[in-house]
C-alpha cells in the first residue's frame, strides 16, 4: 500500500475549485478538511474534491464531504468527488452515500460543460 502524506491543498482552476486530499483522513485532522471544503465553496464556483491520494477515510472525513455537498446544494453549485479509491467507495457505500454524491473519474468528466 502506498502511503501518502496527510495533505489538503486548494487550487483555483478555470471555472471551478479543486480541493486535493491526501493521506489518511481521520478524526485527527478531518476538521481541517472540513474547513478547506467549506472555504472552497465561498467563491460560488463548482467544487471538486480529488481523493486520488487518499489511502483511508473515516466517518469524520465523510461527514466533511457531506457538509460540503450540502453547502454546494444550498448555493446551487456543482460538487463532485473525483478519483475515488476502492476504500473511499466502500465507506460511501456503507452509508449508501455513493448514490448521493456525484462521483467522477476526472475533473474534466465532473465539470464538462454542455
Amino acid at each position: 500500500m502506498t502511503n501518502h502524506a496527510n495533505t489538503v491543498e486548494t487550487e483555483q482552476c478555470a471555472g471551478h475549485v479543486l480541493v486535493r486530499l491526501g493521506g489518511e483522513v481521520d478524526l485527527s485532522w478531518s476538521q481541517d478538511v472540513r474547513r478547506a471544503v467549506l472555504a472552497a465553496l465561498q467563491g460560488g464556483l463548482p467544487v471538486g474534491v480529488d481523493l486520488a491520494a487518499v489511502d483511508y477515510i473515516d466517518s469524520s472525513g465523510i461527514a466533511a464531504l457531506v457538509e460540503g455537498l450540502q453547502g454546494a446544494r444550498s448555493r446551487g453549485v456543482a460538487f463532485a468527488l473525483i478519483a475515488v479509491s476502492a476504500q473511499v467507495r466502500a465507506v460511501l457505500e456503507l452509508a449508501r452515500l455513493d448514490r448521493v454524491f456525484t462521483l467522477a473519474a476526472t475533473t474534466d468528466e465532473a465539470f464538462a460543460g454542455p
Partner: protein
Amino acid sequence: MPSHPRDGPALQPPGLGPEPPVASAQALIDVHQLQAWYGRRRVLHGIDFRVAAGEIRVIMGGSGSGKSTLLRHLIGLQRPASGTVKLFGTDLGTASERELLAVRKRIGVSFQGGALLTSLSVGENVALPLREHTRLDESTIRIMSRLKLEVVNLGGFQDLMPGQLSGGMVKRAALARAIVMDPRLLFFDEPSAGLDPVVAAELDELILRLRDALRMTIVVVTHELESAFKIADTITVLDQGEILMTGAVEAVRAAPNTRIQDLLNRRPREVQVDAETYLRRLTEEEG
C-alpha cells in the same frame, strides 16, 4: 502485511490526549494464560488468545463456557486474576488510567443487553462518545451520528426516545453508538440474539462491511452457527473455561473433537455424573 495505517504516528484527534505507543501492530489482542475466578470458582483456566489486525474472530461455546467473562477481560471491565491481556500492545493489567482511557477510545463495545440512556434521544445516545472524547464541530457530530443510524437502518429515528423503540431497534441503536467513533476494535456479545432473521442477516453483512470499509478488527460472541460461518475468519471454541480449538471455519467444521461437534450439531450434552455425587448434590446443606 503492512502495519495498520492507523497505527502510524498520526496527529492526535482533537481533544484526545497522547496515546500510548503501539507495541504490536500485528496482534491487536494478545491474551496470555488468562485466569478468571468468581469467588472460589475458576471460570477461565489459562486462556491464550490472539487476534490479528483486520480479522473477524468469532467466539463460540455453550452457555456458561466463559465467553462473556473473556470479553469483559478483553475490554478491561474485569482485571485478570492472573495472566495478561494486551490491546494495541498495552497491558490492561498494569496500564495507568490514562493509558486505559486511550485504549477505551479506540474500542467499541456492543454488549448482551446493551442499554441506551433513557433520558436522551436516540441521536444523543449515539453522539455521546463523540461528545465525550472529541471536540468536533456540532455539524460533524450530527452528521457522523446520523450516518451511523443510517448504517444500522435506523435513518430518521434520531429524535425518538429509547422507550419508543422496539427491542431490536434499541439493539441496533446501541450498535450505532458502539461504532460512531470508527473504533479500531469492535466487540460484540450476541449481536443477533432476539433479532428477526432478516435483521440478523443484515447485521452479518454490516459486520463484514465494517471490517472491509473501515478496517475494523471485530470480535463476535455468537450462538448462531450460520452467522458464525458467514462472518468468521477464525473461530475460537470455548468449553468450560478452556479453549478447545482456534481455527478457520472449515477446520472447525471438520474438527473430530466430540464437544465441538456436539456444539455444531446442536446435540444435547450427555451429563456424566455418578450416583453418589448426584445424591450428594441434591441433599448437601448450603454454604
